[in-house]
């Protein structure tokens, strides 16, 4: 049971947005889909959910080609920045209709989340602020109970408190009934504790696809005086450096097993955001 993306490419006129993407989203896993603006994350998610067509390649959901396939598409839910819901329909009625389209939609749970987020279900989507529009869509995404849920910028416009509630409910929901959840976001630090696997997209290509723990083990951070750091990183695979005054930090790919750490040098684990920034800096 998985979503397989096979050789998917997408061209917009003369621009290649995605180039021969090959990926597998397995069931019951939380993925982080990371990439800079314009990297192709949203395009990929739109292709998976049949909103746009790929120029070549296929998306296969549980063994079935997803393109124009109601059965396969019924297993996928995509929440993204676009509001495709009728602007003149009350939120409670949108819940009702979502239940019609997705029979496993849990209306009670949606109402529970609405109360937790303080969302008035008698409002119309067009009357909601940016943050509450995201909340409204998050609630549906968490209540829809499809095997594959894609969240494209789910916390757009949400304040810290609401983001906290969202992560809490996401983990709670996942613990109670695991599902495949793909989160595409720029708030990497926040999401890094939630995700299990990391997929990094750069210029329409996948540059990393591995577990969060293994990706963090691929490198380390070296800090200290510029001279000491420069000496230490000689001959190592350095993916980037930061300098402030006489201090320098280097981001190194590789491991430190059994090596002596010179005085004046501090070694720390790479955090996901730093690694991401260094990997995606052009």
């Amino acid at each position, binding site marked *: 049971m998985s979503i397989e993306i096979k050789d998917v490419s997408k061209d917009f006129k003369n621009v290649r947005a995605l180039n021969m993407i090959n990926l597998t989203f397995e069931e019951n896993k939380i993925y982080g889909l990371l990439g800079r603006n314009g990297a192709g994350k949203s395009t990929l998610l*739109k292709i998976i*959910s*049949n*909103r*746009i*067509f790929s120029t070549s390649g296929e998306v296969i959901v549980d063994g079935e080609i997803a393109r*124009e*396939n*109601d059965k396969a*598409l*019924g*297993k*996928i*839910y*995509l929440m993204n920045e*676009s*509001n*495709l*819901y*009728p602007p003149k329909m009350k939120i409670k009625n949108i819940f009702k*209709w*979502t239940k*019609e*389209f*997705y029979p496993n939609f849990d209306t009670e749970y949606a109402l529970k989340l609405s109360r937790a987020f303080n969302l008035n279900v008698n409002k119309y989507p067009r009357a909601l602020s940016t943050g509450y529009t995201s909340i409204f869509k998050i609630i549906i995404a968490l209540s829809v109970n*499809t095997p594959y849920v894609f969240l494209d910028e789910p916390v757009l416009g949400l304040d810290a408190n609401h983001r906290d509630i969202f992560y809490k409910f996401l983990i709670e929901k996942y613990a109670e009934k695991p599902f495949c959840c793909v989160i595409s976001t720029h708030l990497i630090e926040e999401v890094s504790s939630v995700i299990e696997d990391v997929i990094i997209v750069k210029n329409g290509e996948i540059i990393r696809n591995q577990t969060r723990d293994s990706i963090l083990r691929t490198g380390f951070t070296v800090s200290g005086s510029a001279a000491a750091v420069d000496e230490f990183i000689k001959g190592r695979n350095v993916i980037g450096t930061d300098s402030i005054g006489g201090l320098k930090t280097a981001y190194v790919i590789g491991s430190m097993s059994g090596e002596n750490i010179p005085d004046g040098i501090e070694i720390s684990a790479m955090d996901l955001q730093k690694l991401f920034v260094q990997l995606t800096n052009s």
Partner: protein
Amino acid sequence: MKLKSIYKYLVCQSGKSYLIFFGVILAIVHIGLLITVSLDSNGGIGGMEMATLTYMLVSGVLIYRESLMVSMQNGISRKTFFIGSILTFITISIIASAGDVVINLLGNTYEKNCNMVYDSMYEQFFMKGIYDENVMVTPALSEYFKIFLLDSVMYITVSTIGLAVSVIYYRLSKAMKIIVPIAFIFICQILSVVIPYIDYNFFDSKIMNKVIPCMKWIVESNYHLMAVISCAAVLFIFISYLFIRRVPLNDSKK
């Protein structure tokens, strides 16, 4: 399953607005009839189907964009959405035709009992000729069935025209959205002015001599008219499908 869901959704959304429209039209007709009767003017009203035709055309145009978005959000393919839309048009057209029969029955009840004339489009076209003076023609019960059939086919056709217009416009670029209507007017001008002019001056009206009998044949029987507009409906359904089947979701147009 998905077809049933989108059909149910579309019928609910379209049905609600039709019921409001029907209530307003029924009230207007009733008030119009009451005024005509109270003024004792020997006048008449009719052709209320034109209002329903306009409504169905607009409804065909409006159903597309919002419903396509709802379909995409809820994992429904374009093909299923398209079939659901056509089934919805058929359903609403049948309901609207039944509504017209109710309005006709009301009008003809007044016609029978008061000194005034009420004519449906069908009565005007097929029961007494288009340009006749106010003559009381009350349809038999069997004629109501023909009214129902003709109205149903007409409404389905205009709905599909509305859908086709909407679908084509959705896919056009900004420049093409301006070029297409201008081209349409240009073609209409050629068909209605230039071709008859050329025909009259260079072909001794041979073209018009062939076209006019065809047009007469179309309007001489309700079944001929129904056959022709059914073909038009099929054509517009086909055109709409060609445009819908590969349409990308244009969610930037919020």
